[in-house]
């Protein structure tokens, strides 16, 4: 039987695309080799945030006295892990429900492009079937990138999957890489009492963020006892003993770190192998599937979205790409009344959910200057914020960057309590092409963390009240 749309992979790219396709009247199927919901729901966004919440509750208990509460507590590592798995399972079951509700056929098995309009699926029972579809959307996602010096063995050199389900809590851990995944795990394990050392190749942690964000996070991490080495490279790991011995090349020479385990968190590699791209002649570029702004590959009828295509490897990007891809197909088939707007990758927010949280969108100060903008920068320290004091979380700041000439909101970089819930305002305001003025004339409720965005803008324009 032939489908209108078949999606390969059921992550936040794939399952969202499938639902939108079904909504727009397409007969739709989705193929998944493992668990519905992909990395995001099973091994990424959701289970890590459950772990981080446990860590935050534990931190609050450790500091309960500051709030007038007498408390003692111990983190039960396996219970923390179990809770995280429970949350992930619930969300994955939710996707199953959504597939059923939207009448999407779920085909469990390993899929591979076979010919034009055909995917071969090898089920878990070893049986093979051919699924036919007019439109095939590849949403195979990504996996941990592996360094030659840091081959994941799943026991002592682990990736994010193992880090989420360790049978027992390591006493010490080396985290290689300080992107969002690295610092989230670093924060989590340190909060639970593991001795954590972060090793970063670049000269600062969270290197994609604005430089001041890196500095502030470093300051806070050091305060909580996390060791950080920057401009440092793990050259080899000896796993022969009880734990691991990692050789690290630094500017000052080579040092050897000892720990129970090493977590490799050095980025994402797209899943582009073994899915029939070469056979059908689907082009890749730098290890990712090449697509146009409506996610068409060079082969008619084959599309790709999510972590297997260029662009930020983030769940919200994958989902939006899925929606745009499907709406564009629908438009071309006259099932939708307009061509969807292409995704503006310059207005995608990025969030990191350790404490202090990080949220940012748009240009960093350096990027803005490099792009030739004359800029106005405003930075408001959360130590001056009423809500931050009431919450007992005074760390961090809000930093806004505007174009001095026309007042365009070029970028925002925030670090502190709850900032991940505050970034959407800025994305929407930028989408609506605000200038600083309209934001100042929008009343932010007091006392919230969000009002500090307004305060930062006032700083940029010399109208600061609270500093």
């Amino acid at each position, binding site marked *: 039987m032939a489908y209108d749309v078949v999606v390969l992979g059921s992550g936040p790219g794939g399952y969202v695309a499938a639902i939108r396709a079904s909504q727009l009247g397409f007969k739709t199927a989705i193929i998944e080799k493992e668990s519905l919901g992909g990395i995001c729901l099973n091994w990424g966004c959701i289970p890590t945030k459950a772990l981080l919440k446990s860590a935050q509750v534990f931190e609050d208990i450790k500091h309960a006295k500051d709030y007038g509460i007498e408390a003692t507590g111990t983190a039960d590592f396996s219970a923390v892990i179990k809770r995280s798995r429970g949350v992930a399972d619930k969300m994955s079951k939710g996707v199953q429900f959504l597939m059923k509700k939207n009448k999407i056929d779920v085909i469990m098995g390993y899929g591979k492009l076979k010919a034009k309009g055909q995917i071969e699926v090898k089920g878990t029972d070893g049986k093979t079937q051919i699924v036919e579809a007019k439109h095939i959307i590849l949403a195979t996602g990504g996996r941990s990138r592996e360094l030659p010096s840091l081959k994941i063995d799943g026991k002592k050199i682990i990736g994010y999957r193992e880090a989420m389900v360790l049978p027992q809590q390591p006493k010490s851990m080396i985290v290689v890489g300080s992107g969002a995944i690295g610092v989230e795990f670093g924060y989590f394990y340190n909060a639970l009492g593991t001795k954590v050392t972060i090793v970063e190749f670049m000269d600062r942690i969270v290197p994609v963020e604005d430089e001041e964000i890196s500095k502030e996070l470093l300051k806070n991490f050091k305060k909580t006892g996390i060791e950080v080495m920057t401009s440092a490279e793990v050259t080899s790991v000896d796993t022969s003993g009880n734990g691991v011995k990692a050789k690290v090349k630094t500017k000052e020479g080579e040092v050897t770190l000892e720990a129970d385990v090493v977590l490799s968190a050095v980025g994402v590699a797209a899943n582009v192998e073994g899915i029939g791209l070469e056979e059908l002649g689907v082009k890749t570029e730098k290890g990712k599937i090449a697509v146009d702004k409506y996610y068409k590959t060079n082969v008619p009828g084959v599309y790709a979205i999510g972590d297997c295509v260029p662009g930020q490897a983030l769940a919200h990007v994958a989902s939006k790409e899925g929606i745009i891809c499907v709406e564009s197909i629908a438009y071309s088939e006259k099932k939708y009344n307009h061509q969807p707007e292409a995704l503006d990758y310059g207005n995608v927010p990025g969030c990191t959910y350790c404490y202090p949280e990080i949220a940012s969108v748009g240009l960093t100060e350096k990027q803005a200057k490099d792009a030739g903008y004359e800029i106005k920068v405003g930075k408001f320290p959360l130590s001056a914020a009423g809500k931050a004091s009431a919450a007992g979380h005074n760390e961090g700041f809000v930093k806004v960057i505007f174009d001095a000439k026309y*007042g365009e909101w070029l970028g925002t970089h925030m670090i502190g309590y709850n900032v991940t819930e505050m970034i959407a305002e800025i994305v929407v305001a930028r989408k*609506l092409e605000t*200038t600083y*003025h*309209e934001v100042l004339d929008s009343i932010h409720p007091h006392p919230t963390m969000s009002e500090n965005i307004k305060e930062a803008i006032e700083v940029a324009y010399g109208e600061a009240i609270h500093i």
Partner: protein
Amino acid sequence: APAHGTGNGRVIASPLAKKLASEKGIDINKVAGSGDGGRIIKRDIDNYTPA
């Protein structure tokens, strides 16, 4: 009212003003903006009377 825009043919108007103008059959190029930086906003469409 004078034509309002950036001089490059681009009309600066809020999304709601654009929608209102198109639904009500008002040529937005003829509307003067009273929002920030001369942006055409809802009240300008509401108050607009064709010359």
